[in-house]
C-alpha cells in the first residue's frame, strides 16, 4: 500500500518527509507546489478566508471559495491575483496532491483546506469556531492524520459566553442609556455582520448606523442571503441627538478619529474575544465589553482536537505553547508550527 502510493507520487520527496513545510512565505506543500495563506506574494496560493493577514493581494494564482474570492475582490480590486479559481465542494488536483475546501465556521466563505498527498490527509483549518453562526456555514470536523489548529484563544482562561448573552448586555445598556450613542467596535469583515445579525435575532429592528469602512462588506453579506435589516451611514450632517440610543458600528481604530466626535456622550463597546479579559478592557478604554469571538475558545479548541482524532496536531497562530501542553497532558502528539507574519485577531 505504502509502496504503491510512493510509486504514484512523482516527486522525489524522501519517505517520511513532512507533507507541508513552514517557510518564510507561509505553509508550503511541495507535492502540490502551493502555499496556504502565504504572507508574501507567491506563484500559487490557497486561501482559507478573507481576513487581511490570511488573504493578501499579488499572488500568481489563487484558489479559494467563491465568497473568499469575492471578498478579496471587494478589498483589493478585481485584479488582486494573476488568476482566480473558485473551489467547488469536491476535490481539486494540484500536482501530486489533491485538495478540498470544507466550511470552517469562522466568517462567510471561510474554509478548512483538506490536503491529501502521499497517502496522508492534512487539514489546515485556518481560523475556525464551533458555535453556530447565522452569517456563515458551520464548521465540519474532518478526520485526518495531521490537523493544523489555530490557537488565537489557546489558553484555558478563554471560555466565551454565549453571543446571545453578550447581545443582551448591549440591549440592556441601550435601554438604560437612551441618551447615549452606542459605538460598537467590530472588525469590518465577519464580526460586524455577525453583531448586526445577532441584534436582529434578539429583536432589535431599529436602523443600525455604519462607519463607511463597513458598508460594502455588509452589502455583500446581504447579497449572499444574510439579512441584516435597515442599515444607514453614520455620516453626513444632522442633529447630534439623532444617534442617541442608537447602535453605531465601526472599526475600533475609527473611535480614535474625529469621525467619532459626532456622537453624543458615546458608550464605547468592543465586540471581541479579547474582551473576556478585564485587563484588556481597561487598556483599551472600553466601557462595554462584548465577548463575541469568531475564533474557538479553549473548550472548542480541545473538543475539536478530540473530534478530528488526528495522529498529530500542529498548532499555529496564537498561544501555541499552552495548546501543545494540553495535547501532551492528554496523550496527543502535537507540536507548534512557527509561522511568521500572522497577527492576533485583526482589529
Amino acid at each position, binding site marked *: 500500500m505504502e509502496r504503491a502510493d510512493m510509486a504514484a507520487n512523482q516527486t522525489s520527496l524522501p519517505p517520511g518527509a513532512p507533507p507541508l513545510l513552514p517557510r518564510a512565505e507561509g505553509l508550503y506543500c511541495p507535492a502540490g507546489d502551493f502555499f496556504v495563506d502565504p504572507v508574501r506574494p507567491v506563484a500559487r496560493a490557497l486561501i482559507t478566508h478573507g481576513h487581511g493577514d490570511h488573504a493578501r493581494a499579488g499572488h500568481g494564482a489563487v484558489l479559494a471559495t467563491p465568497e473568499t474570492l469575492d471578498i478579496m475582490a471587494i478589498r483589493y480590486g478585481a485584479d488582486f491575483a494573476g488568476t482566480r479559481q473558485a473551489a467547488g465542494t469536491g476535490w481539486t488536483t494540484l500536482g501530486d496532491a489533491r485538495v478540498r475546501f470544507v466550511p470552517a465556521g469562522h466568517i462567510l466563505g471561510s474554509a478548512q483546506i483538506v490536503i491529501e498527498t502521499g497517502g496522508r490527509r492534512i487539514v489546515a483549518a485556518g481560523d475556525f469556531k464551533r458555535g453556530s453562526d447565522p452569517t456563515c456555514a458551520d464548521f465540519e470536523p474532518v478526520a485526518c492524520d495531521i490537523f493544523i489548529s489555530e490557537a488565537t484563544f489557546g489558553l484555558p482562561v478563554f471560555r466565551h459566553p454565549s453571543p446571545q448573552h453578550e447581545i443582551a448586555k448591549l440591549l440592556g445598556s441601550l435601554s438604560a442609556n437612551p441618551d447615549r450613542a452606542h459605538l460598537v467596535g467590530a472588525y469590518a469583515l465577519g464580526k460586524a455582520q455577525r453583531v448586526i445579525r445577532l441584534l436582529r435575532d434578539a429583536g432589535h429592528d431599529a436602523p443600525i448606523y455604519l462607519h463607511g469602512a463597513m458598508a460594502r462588506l455588509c452589502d455583500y453579506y446581504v447579497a449572499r442571503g444574510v439579512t441584516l435589516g435597515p442599515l444607514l451611514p453614520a455620516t453626513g450632517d444632522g442633529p447630534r441627538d439623532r444617534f442617541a440610543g442608537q447602535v453605531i458600528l465601526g472599526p475600533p481604530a475609527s473611535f480614535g478619529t474625529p469621525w467619532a*466626535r459626532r456622537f453624543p456622550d458615546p458608550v464605547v463597546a468592543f465586540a471581541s474575544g479579547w474582551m473576556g479579559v*478585564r*485587563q484588556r478592557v481597561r487598556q483599551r478604554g472600553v466601557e462595554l465589553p462584548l465577548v463575541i469571538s469568531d475564533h474557538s475558545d479553549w473548550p472548542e479548541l480541545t473538543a475539536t482536537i478530540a473530534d478530528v482524532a488526528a495522529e498529530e496536531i500542529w498548532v499555529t497562530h496564537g498561544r501555541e505553547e499552552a495548546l501543545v501542553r494540553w495535547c501532551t497532558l492528554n496523550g496527543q502528539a502535537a507540536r507548534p508550527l512557527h509561522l511568521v507574519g500572522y497577527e492576533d485577531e485583526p482589529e
Partner: protein
Amino acid sequence: MKAFARLLARLVTTPSRTGKLRLVRDYLATTPDPDRGYALAALTGGLDLPGVKPALLRALVAERVDEVLFRLSYDYVGDLAETIALIWDGREDSDLPLSEVVHQLGTAGKVEAARVVAGLLDRFDASSRHALIKLATGALRAGLSARLAKTALADHGGVAVDEIEEIWHGLRPPYPELFAWLDGRGPRPAAVGHAPFRPVMLATPLADKDSEMLDPSDFAAEWKWDGIRVQVVCEQGTRRIYTRTGDEISAAFPDLSEALMFEGAFDGELLVRKGDGVAPFADLQQRLNRKTVDARLAARFPAFIRAYDILVWNGEDLRPLPFRDRRDRLETAVAALGSPRVDLSPLVTFDSWTALARHRAEPPDPVIEGLMLKRWDSPYLAGRPKGAWFKWKRDPFLIDAVLMYAQRGHGKRSSYYSDYTFGVWAADGTLTPVGKAYFGFTDEELLQIDRYVRENTTDRFGPVRAVRATRDRGLVVEVAFEGLNRSTRHKSGVAMRFPRISRLRWDKPPSEADTLEGLSALLPPA
C-alpha cells in the same frame, strides 16, 4: 451575587463620575435588603471579613489546573484574581444572595476557608467568581471612592451626602436602620458615639475683585500648608483620623492616632516632620494610600497635625461659635495638650491687603501653598458658605516646555489626543520629558492641539504619538505647576506637582523653551 458582580464589572469600565453614580444608584434601588447593605459596605471598605490569602487561592487552583497551563495563563492575564476567576472550571452557573456569600466567608474558620471558597467558586460563573475572589481577599478596587458610594446612596435617598457622613460611623453593615430612614420607613439614625465625622468647612478661591470689596479687619489670615486636610476626633476612647471627604485613614497613621489624648475634634493639616521643620509633600506621600504602615516607615516620616480649628471640646459643640472665639479655645486646647504630634497653625498679622500680598509672595516655609482668610465672625458650617473663608494660593510656577508625546484620552475624550508629555532642553541639546498634563486648556485649544498632533506625528506607539519637536519646529506650551521635587523614577530627575497647560505659545520657537538646568533651580535644597 450576579447583580453585585455585574455592578463591579461595570464600575471598573465606566469612566465618568455620573456614570458610576448612576450604576450604584440603580443597584441600590433594585437590590433587596440586606444584600444592598453588604454591597455598600464592600464599596466603602466597611466589610470586615477574615481575609483569604492569595497563597490559599493559588493552592486551590493548583489542585485543579496543570501548573504550566496556569503559569501561561497568569502570564497572559497579568492579574491573579482574574486568572483564577477565568480558569476555574465552574460546574454550575447559579446565583446566591450576596448576604449568604458574606455570611459563609465571615463564619468560615481558617481551616474551612479553603473548602468554603472552593465550594462557592464551583457554583458561580466567571464574573461572580471574580467578585467572590475580590470580596474574599479584601482587595475590591472597585474604581470609586467611599465618598462616591455614599453620594450615590444620598442620591438614592434624596438627602445630602453630609447628612449620611455625620451618622455613618455609628452604623454597621448591612445598615438596616439607614435604609429604613432613606426609604421613609424609619427615623434618621442618631449620630452617637464612635467619634463621628463632621462635614468640613471649605473656602472659595479669592478673586481679584474680592479683596477690593472686603475689609481686612474682618479677617484672620493663616498659612495654607501643603499636606492633606484632616479631621481628628477622640471621643470616649475612640480615635479617628478622617480625610476632608470623611474617609477614615487612622490605620495608616498609628503613630499619630496613639498620641491623640483628648476629648474633642480638631480640623487641621496632616503633615510629616523633618528635623525641626515640615517635610515636603513628597515625604507625606510615602505614607498615603496605605492600609497599614510599618514602624520603620512611621519613624522615618513621623506624622503630625497642624491644627486650624476646633469643632468639639469636652462634649461641647463649638461649631456655632464665631471663628474668633474658636481660635481662643483652639490655642488653649493645643497648649494644654503639649503634644509634639499636635501644634498650632500660626496666624499671620496684617493691616492691609498689600501687606498680606507681601506675605503671600514670601512665605516663611517652602511647604506653604498660600494663605487662608477666615472671617472672624464665621461659624463653622458644612460645605462652602459664600464669603466666609477664602483661599489665596501662591502663584504657580510657570515654564515653557515643548510638546513631545500625546496620548488619546478616555471616555468622552477617546477621539482626542488630550494627554500630553512635555519636555525641556537638557545640557546635551536634546529634549528631556519633565511632566505630563491633561487639563488646563479650553475645549477650543484641545481641538487645536489635537489637530496639531495629527498633522505633526513622527512616530506611533499604540495610543501614543510622538510629535515633531526640533529646535525650530514644535509646539511650545506654558506649563503651570505647584512645586518641584527630586525624583529617582524620572529620567529628568524632577517631578512636578499638579502640572497643567496654562497657555499655548504658538508664537514661540521651541529653541526658546526652558532648560532642565533652569527648571532644576526651582528644586528645594537637598
